[in-house]
């Protein structure tokens, strides 16, 4: 039996999924990146190998996320695609004809607009809407409720309290104020969800035409209160896919399956987990652009590099890794 690996290396978390030939998720792993992407990828591979039934053979690997090039070189990825594409691909597979993707993670928020099946526009978090996920976590613990219960509590609200959500600092102080005025917790939670949704739509979705079907994904999509708040603000229903949390990795695996169709994989095997990799870099002084060039070394050998504007370093490498 064949399987496809998708690896999403973000700044906060690293997700690895393995799908079967039919695109269904067989196993998924979530790890915190903690600023050490190479180690985390290696660790994740070990865990994946241990969890897999022996008869599965990896037939394709795709990487995505901000650490996609790094992970791709280390593991021998068949495709290296950015998060916009992988999220769009995964969402279009789950909800055919999707026109809008709302994606809110722990640190990142983005919106992807698809028209005719093609990404027509997208935006990533402006400063203010960043960290929506962590903010929700914080507020849950301040109110002494489990984050898992946050959403269902919010749904019990009779009249959501209006909370000033322009930024997290205002939102927090306004919440405290409303608590002191005696509003009940569900009304406050629902109000907070509505404030965050307003903030997202104003800052991330600014000026974009949000048409249904809408897919809501990323860690925060688990929160049914947020889903309800989006539906209320938009006026139509919002779809949260089953694997809302690993859509990037899922999309990467799907693309890897396409890319290796009738071709063999570049996957270097699970034992890359035991090899020694290092990331280095330097500022080129070849011209006034002073590019910051990144190098990946395996046992002291440069195996890939990027970041040069003119191609002076990346073109010089004998086996040219196509970065896309």
């Amino acid at each position, binding site marked *: 039996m064949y399987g496809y690996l998708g690896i999403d290396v973000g700044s906060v978390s690293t997700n690895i999924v393995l799908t079967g030939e039919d695109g269904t998720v067989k196993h998924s792993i979530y790890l915190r990146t903690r600023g050490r992407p190479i180690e985390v990828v290696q660790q994740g591979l070990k865990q994946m190998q241990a969890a897999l039934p022996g008869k599965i053979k990896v037939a394709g690997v795709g990487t995505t996320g901000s650490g996609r090039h790094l992970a791709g070189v280390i593991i021998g990825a068949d495709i290296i695609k950015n998060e916009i594409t992988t999220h769009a691909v995964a969402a279009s597979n789950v909800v055919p004809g999707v026109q809008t993707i709302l994606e809110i993670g722990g640190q990142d928020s983005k919106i992807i607009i*698809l028209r005719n*099946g*093609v990404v027509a526009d997208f935006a990533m978090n402006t400063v203010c809407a960043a960290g929506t996920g962590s903010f929700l976590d914080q507020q849950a613990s301040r109110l002494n409720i489990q984050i898992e219960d946050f959403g269902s509590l919010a749904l019990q609200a009779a009249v959501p309290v209006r909370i000033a959500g322009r930024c997290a600092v205002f939102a927090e102080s306004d919440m405290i104020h409303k608590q002191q005025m005696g509003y009940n917790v569900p009304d406050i939670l629902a109000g907070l969800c509505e404030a965050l949704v307003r903030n997202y739509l104003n800052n991330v979705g600014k000026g974009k035409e949000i048409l249904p079907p809408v897919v809501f994904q990323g860690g925060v999509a688990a929160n049914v209160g947020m889903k309800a708040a989006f539906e209320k603000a938009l006026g139509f229903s919002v779809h949260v896919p089953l694997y809302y949390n690993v859509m990037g990795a899922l999309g990467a695996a799907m693309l890897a399956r396409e890319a290796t169709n009738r071709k063999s994989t570049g996957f270097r095997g699970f034992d890359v987990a035991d090899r020694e990799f290092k990331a280095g870099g330097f500022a080129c002084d070849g011209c006034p652009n002073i590019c910051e060039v990144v190098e990946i070394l395996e046992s002291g050998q440069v195996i890939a590099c990027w970041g040069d504007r003119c191609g002076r370093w990346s*073109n010089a490498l004998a086996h040219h890794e196509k970065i896309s």
Partner: protein
Amino acid sequence: MKVVYPHMGHMWICVKAMLEYLDVEVVVPPPSSKKTLLLGVKHAPEFACMPLKLNLGNFMEAAEMGADTIVMAGGCGPCRFGYYAHVEHAILRDLGYRYQLVVLEPPQKHIGELLGKIKHITGHQSWRRVINGIRFGYHKAEAVDQLEKMSHYCRPRETRAGATDRALQSALREIIAVDRPEKLPAALNNAMGMMNAVSLDKQRPVLRIGLVGEIYTLLEPFSNLDIERKLGGMGVEVDRSIYLSEWINEHLFMGLKKNKGGSKLAKQKAIKYLGHSVGGHGLETVGSTVLYAERGYDGVIQLLPFTCMPEIVAQSILPRVSTELGIPVMTLIVDEQSGEAGLVTRLEAFVDLLARRKQTGKVLA
């Protein structure tokens, strides 16, 4: 007198040829770089657009090399470009630079106005020689455009990464080296030979994307983060809606040379969506998008510097063109804040999904 003019892609090659033919000493500033931009950003008003900042940086870098006279194109109409030369000159004066300024404006009535300005720079040259000089520069522009077009075809099809870029560099050197008009045809032949020598995989499927938008951002690779090379590397054959020689012909020669592609057709196509001029290349942006859709291109990318008014008007109209004609359009706005990673991410996403759209021949399933 040592003359400097701002960079705009390969424009320097033809202006240099023209001026040196007329015995004017020329200072070519170093190619626009991060340093150029930093200089400009530091001294320009924050809300000025990127071309102004880069121009300013070019002039400051050229002053170090001894330049003392600025030659720059002007303009008229609602776009701010028309007074850039004067604003830049004033900023430089405040900074203590002693530059003389000559603005080449598009002639209102007669080509003679332009010739007069050029004659002012060249002093006592005969009219005949001045006209020959202009023609020489113009022919170089045509040669450069032709080589660039060849590179657009080669890049996505090259079998060895970077081969097209290397060939284009040597081909351009051939053209740059020519100092007499009679030698140009032979040099162009040579240069085209170099481009033809790039080994290609002609069967490889490529996407075709048309680039529309504001002229400076289209022509100056530093300002658009080298979009043509990036797209080429992703397997895209690009076409630019404006080439230098066409622009010179229309803007400065009042379309003296006929049958030169140019923007007339694009302007006609725009009428359905935008009935009047909005300055800059707003009309052409809309019209060229229509043309690309009609010619079966896979997508269109609009490029503009942040705060560019004519292009913002066009941007607001493009979604309608896109839906009605079924061609995906993406807008990229650049300024000194634009991060390379962000731009690459957007380009990749656009190209990927165009490819998928083409492959499946329908919407994503």
